[in-house]
């Protein structure tokens, strides 16, 4: 009986979704603001990567909210896990020579790649979130391969706080100098060069540090407390 009801419900849901999907005209530009971003984005923000100009410049305040959500998630995880803290230092069996050497060679390369991704966020695909996630996966590799190594919590907290502070201070400087939050008050320079697009690279570097240290501290919390 339950199976019949659930299949019936699935059919109804599938019918509703297909009905609403059939109404969407695919491939047709629907919003005018998207066309404006594509045509004027490079001129207005100086960032060649249009996704970056939307994420950091046009919708910069939303990005601040997104970073805050991630911050609250990391803090919540830390609070929940630190309530059940019991083991101080556990004996870890070191990984084999091949594994630990491989990790030691790969780790700096992954860090450089993540840094490249978020420094060049306004030129090439990627940005602070992607670069931060890549850096965090490098720290995950260290936790899995070189088990006797630990990242210092103080340094990770410092990077996280500095990232958030730089983001908000840049936004407030825009408010002071031009009248609205996250105004691009720095000179935009010539497009398609590294030092261009005003505050966008600075904000993406801050986001990269913040996201990387947050995700790394989530992994650190999970591995240390479990």
């Amino acid at each position: 009986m339950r199976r019949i009801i659930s299949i019936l419900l699935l059919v109804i849901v599938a019918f509703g979704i297909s009905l609403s999907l059939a109404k969407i005209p695919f491939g047709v530009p629907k919003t005018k603001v998207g066309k404006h971003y594509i045509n004027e984005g490079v001129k207005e923000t100086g960032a060649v990567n249009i996704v970056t100009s939307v994420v950091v410049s046009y919708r910069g305040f939303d990005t601040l909210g997104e970073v805050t959500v991630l911050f609250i998630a990391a803090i919540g995880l830390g609070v929940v896990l630190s309530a059940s803290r019991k083991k101080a230092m556990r004996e870890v069996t070191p990984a084999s020579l091949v594994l630990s050497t491989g990790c030691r060679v790969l780790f700096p390369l992954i860090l450089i790649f993540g840094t490249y991704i978020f420094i060049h966020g306004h030129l090439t695909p990627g940005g602070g979130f992607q670069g931060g996630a890549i850096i965090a996966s490098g720290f995950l590799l260290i936790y899995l391969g070189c088990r006797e190594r630990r990242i210092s919590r103080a340094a990770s907290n410092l990077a996280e706080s500095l990232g958030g502070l730089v983001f908000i201070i840049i936004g407030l400087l825009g408010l002071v100098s031009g009248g609205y939050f996250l105004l691009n008050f720095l000179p935009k320079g010539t497009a398609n060069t590294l030092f261009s697009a005003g505050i966008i690279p600075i904000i993406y570097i801050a986001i990269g540090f913040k996201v990387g240290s947050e995700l790394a501290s989530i992994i650190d919390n999970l591995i240390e407390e479990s």
Partner: protein
Amino acid sequence: MIFFISLLVFLMLVAAIAASVFRDLISAVIATALVSLAASILFYFLQAPDVAMAEAAIGAALTTAIFIIAIRRTKRYEE
């Protein structure tokens, strides 16, 4: 091209069904990672490299690791 994309979509479907069928939770997590990996390649072919990067780094690497750490603390096999 269209053949490759349909192959990817088929792979995603199979992996998603396998993830819900497997009794071994580690295998199920690996299957969801496969879904994420295929999705990130698909995003790249749909000309969204930014999303592809985020999907590959978060969906395929970090989420899998967090799931596996959680499974290590609980039970590996579903009853």
